[in-house]
C-alpha cells in the first residue's frame, strides 16, 4: 500500500481516538487488510470498509462520518468550477447582484427539495458554499461559514411553498400535510448537513484536517450536560430513555441471578438426593426474592433545570416495574403531586406537558423556593416518605437566597430508607452564589448527575440486587 495512504490512515485513526473511539491494534490491522481488497476509488466503499473494521458503536457514527469527510474529502478544490461557472474573483464580489442571485438560488433549492435527488442536492450544496459561504477575514486569508449560506438561503422559509406544491390542492391540516412536512423537514436537514460538511471540507483544505478534527465532532447526546443541552439534544435523549431503561433492567436481572440464592428448597433437595442414593450432594435453593423499594421523586421543574427533571422522571417511570410504587412530586415555589399524570401505559412526553400545564406549582412569584416547597411537601404528604421509601430530590438547589428548611429535610431523610439529592450542576459550582447545596449536603447525600451517563451509573447503584 502507498505510504501516503498509510499516513493518512494513521492520522484518521488518531483523530478517531481523540473523539473517543477505542481502536485497538488488531482493528488497525483489519482495516489495513480491508483496504487491500476494496476498490479505493469508491469512496463510499472505503467509508464502509473503515466503518466495518473500526466503528463498533452506533453512537460514534456521527463523529466517524464527520472525521471521514475531513480526512478523505470527496473532492479537492473546486470541482464544479471547471464546468465554466463563475470564476473565483466574481464570487468574491457577489454583494452587488447578490439579491437576484439569491432568489434564483432559492428557486433552484426549492425544485431540488421537491425532487429529492440526493446527488443533485449535494452538488448544489457545494456550489452555494462557494458562492455564499466565503468571507475574506484578512487580505490573503479566507474563511468559510455555513451560517452565511443557510441564512442567505433560509431553507426553512421555503416550507410553505413546498407544501403547497406537494399537496397540490389536497386539504390542508390533515394527515397528508403532516406526512409531507416530515419528508420535507428531513430533506432540509439533509441539505443543512451537506452544507456543513462542505464547509468543513473547505476549511480542512485551508488549515489541514488535524486542526479541524477537534472541533468537527460534537459530543455524544448521553455526555451532553443537562443544563446546556439544546432542544435537539433533549429530543435525542428522550428517544434513548426506553432503550436505556431496558438495558438497565436486563443488567439488573443478570445481577440478581448471579447474586446469592434464597432459602433452602427442602423438597427439591430431597428429590434430587434420590439419584445419589439418598445423600444430598447438591442442595437446591428457592430463587431470591428481590426487594423492590418505593420510589418518591421530588423534583424542581423551574425553567433552568426542567430538562433534567423531565428526563429523570421519564426514566423513573420507564423503570417503574423495578419499584413497588413510584410517586412523583413537582415544585417551583410550592409542591404538587404529579403521579396522576403518569398512569400506566400513558404517553410520557404528553404527561410531562400536562404536568407543566395543570399542576399547581406556583405559590408566590414562580421563582424556585426549596424551603417552602420542602415544608409544604412534609405537611401535605406526611405519608409519602416511610421506612421502605427511596427518596430522590432533583434540583440545582439554587434557592434565590430564601429559607432552606434543612431541619424538615433532615427528618424526611431519617424517615426514608435511602435518600439522594441529584444535582445537575458541576460539583465545582456547588455552594456558589445562591446555591444552597452546602446546607443541604449536610443532611442528604448529594450526587452530581450532569449527563445521562452519570444518571445511568447512579440508577444502577440505586436499584437493589
Amino acid at each position, binding site marked *: 500500500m502507498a505510504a501516503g495512504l498509510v499516513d493518512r490512515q494513521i492520522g484518521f485513526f488518531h483523530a478517531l481516538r481523540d473523539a473517543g473511539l*477505542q481502536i*485497538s491494534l*488488531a*482493528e488497525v490491522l*483489519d482495516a489495513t*487488510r*480491508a483496504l487491500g*481488497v*476494496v*476498490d479505493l476509488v*469508491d469512496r*463510499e*466503499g472505503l*467509508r*464502509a*470498509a473503515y*466503518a*466495518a*473494521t473500526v*466503528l*463498533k458503536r*452506533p453512537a460514534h*457514527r456521527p463523529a466517524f462520518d464527520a472525521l471521514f469527510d475531513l480526512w478523505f474529502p470527496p473532492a479537492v478544490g473546486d470541482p464544479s468550477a471547471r464546468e465554466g461557472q463563475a470564476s473565483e474573483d466574481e464570487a468574491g464580489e457577489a454583494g452587488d447582484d447578490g439579491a437576484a442571485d439569491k432568489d434564483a438560488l432559492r428557486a433552484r433549492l426549492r425544485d431540488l427539495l421537491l425532487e*429529492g435527488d440526493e446527488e443533485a442536492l449535494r452538488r448544489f450544496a457545494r456550489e452555494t458554499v462557494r458562492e455564499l459561504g466565503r468571507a475574506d477575514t484578512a487580505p490573503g486569508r479566507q474563511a468559510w461559514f455555513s451560517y452565511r449560506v443557510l441564512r442567505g438561503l433560509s431553507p426553512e422559509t421555503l416550507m410553505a411553498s413546498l407544501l403547497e406544491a406537494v399537496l397540490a390542492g389536497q386539504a390542508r*391540516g*390533515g*394527515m*397528508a400535510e*403532516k*406526512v*409531507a412536512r*416530515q*419528508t420535507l*423537514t*428531513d430533506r432540509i436537514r439533509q441539505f443543512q448537513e451537506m452544507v456543513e460538511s462542505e464547509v468543513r471540507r473547505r476549511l480542512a483544505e485551508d488549515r489541514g484536517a488535524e486542526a479541524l478534527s477537534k472541533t468537527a465532532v460534537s459530543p455524544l447526546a448521553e455526555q451532553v450536560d443537562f443544563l446546556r443541552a439544546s432542544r435537539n439534544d433533549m*429530543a435525542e435523549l*428522550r*428517544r434513548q430513555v*426506553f*432503550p436505556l431503561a*431496558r*438495558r438497565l433492567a*436486563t*443488567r439488573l436481572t*443478570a445481577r440478581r441471578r448471579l447474586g446469592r440464592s434464597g432459602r433452602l428448597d427442602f423438597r427439591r433437595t430431597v428429590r434430587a438426593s434420590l439419584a445419589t442414593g439418598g445423600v444430598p450432594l447438591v442442595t437446591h435453593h428457592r430463587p431470591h426474592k428481590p426487594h423492590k423499594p418505593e420510589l418518591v421523586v421530588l423534583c424542581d421543574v423551574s425553567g433552568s433545570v426542567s430538562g433534567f427533571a423531565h428526563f429523570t422522571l421519564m426514566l423513573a417511570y420507564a423503570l417503574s416495574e423495578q419499584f413497588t410504587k413510584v410517586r412523583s412530586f413537582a415544585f417551583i415555589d410550592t409542591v404538587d403531586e404529579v403521579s396522576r399524570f403518569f398512569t400506566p*401505559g*400513558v*404517553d*410520557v*412526553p*404528553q404527561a410531562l406537558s400536562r404536568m407543566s400545564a395543570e399542576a399547581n406549582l406556583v405559590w408566590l412569584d414562580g421563582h424556585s423556593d426549596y424551603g417552602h416547597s420542602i415544608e409544604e411537601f412534609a405537611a401535605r404528604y406526611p405519608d409519602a416518605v416511610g421506612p421502605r421509601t427511596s427518596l430522590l430530590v432533583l434540583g440545582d438547589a439554587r434557592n434565590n437566597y430564601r429559607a432552606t428548611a434543612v431541619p424538615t429535610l433532615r427528618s424526611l431523610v431519617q424517615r426514608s430508607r435511602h435518600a439522594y439529592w441529584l444535582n445537575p450542576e458541576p460539583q465545582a459550582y456547588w455552594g456558589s452564589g445562591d446555591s444552597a447545596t452546602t446546607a443541604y449536603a449536610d443532611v442528604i447525600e448529594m450526587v452530581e448527575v450532569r449527563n445521562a451517563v452519570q444518571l445511568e451509573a447512579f440508577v444502577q447503584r440505586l436499584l437493589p440486587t
Partner: protein
Amino acid sequence: MQSPQFASPADVAERLSAAGYLTDDAIATTVFLADRLGKPLLVEGPAGVGKTELAKAVAEATGSALIRLQCYEGLDEARALYEWNYKKQLLRIQASGDDASWDDISDDVFAEEFLLSRPLLTAIRREEPTVLLVDETDKADVEVEGLLLEVLSDFQITIPELGTITASRRPIVFLTSNATRELSEALKRRCLYLHLDYPSAEREKAIVLSRVPEIAEQLAGSLVSTVRALRAMELKKSPSISESIDWARTLLALGLDTLDEQAVRTTLGVVLKHASDHDRATTQLKLD
C-alpha cells in the same frame, strides 16, 4: 485459505438482490469484507430491520447451508458445541458383555458415533459451504461470549477425548444483536461490525415493492413516507421494516388503494403495538 464467495461489493449487491434482499453500499461492502477477510460479522440494530434476513439471504445467494444457533438465557456448551450421548454410551457398555476389556470399551464409547454435534461444531466440521448464524447474541449469558471467542477467532474446537477439530472450510459467520446489553470489547474486536438502521426512503420503498410486488408504486411511496413520519415521533416502539411490509400486505388484503385518514385509522394497529403510541400518532396525524 479457501476461495472467496464474492468477487466484489457490486457482486454481493447483485446476488443478494436476486435472493430477495436489497442492500446498500455499507451492507454490500461489509458482507464482502466478511467473506474476504474470513472474519465473523456482528450485525446490530433495532428489531425488525432484517438482521436475520441478511444471513438467510447470504446463505441463499452463495448456495450454502444455514446453520442457526439461537441464543437464550441459560444457553451452555452442551447446547452450543457438543454433547456426549450418555444413554447410548451406557447401552454400549452394557451390550459388550464380559469378554471386552475396559480399554477397548473406553476407547470405543468416546468415538464419533457417540458424539451429539450441536450448531457450532456442526458448522465447523462441514465440508460444504456454510453460513453460521448466531442469533440474538445479546440474549445469551456473558460466559457464552467467552465460548464464542475461541470458536470464532481460530475456527477450532477442542474435545478432550477426540483432540482438536479445525474447520476445513471456514463458514461465513453472522452474529446478530438487539443491543439490549453491550457485548464485550473482546468479542467486538474479533468481529467486523455492521449497524443496520431504518433504511432511506428510496431503499425502503424498493424493499416494500420487492416483498409485496402486487402493491401500486404510488401507494408504496405514501406508505413509506407515513412510516417515516411515525418514526420521527417520540414513540415507545418505532415501526420497523417488517412492519412496513406487513402494513403493505394488510392494505392489499383490504383492497385499499390510497392511504387516506380512514385507511390509516383502521390499520394503524399493524404498525404500532402500544396503546400510548397509538394515541400519540392519532393526535399528531390528526386522524380524529
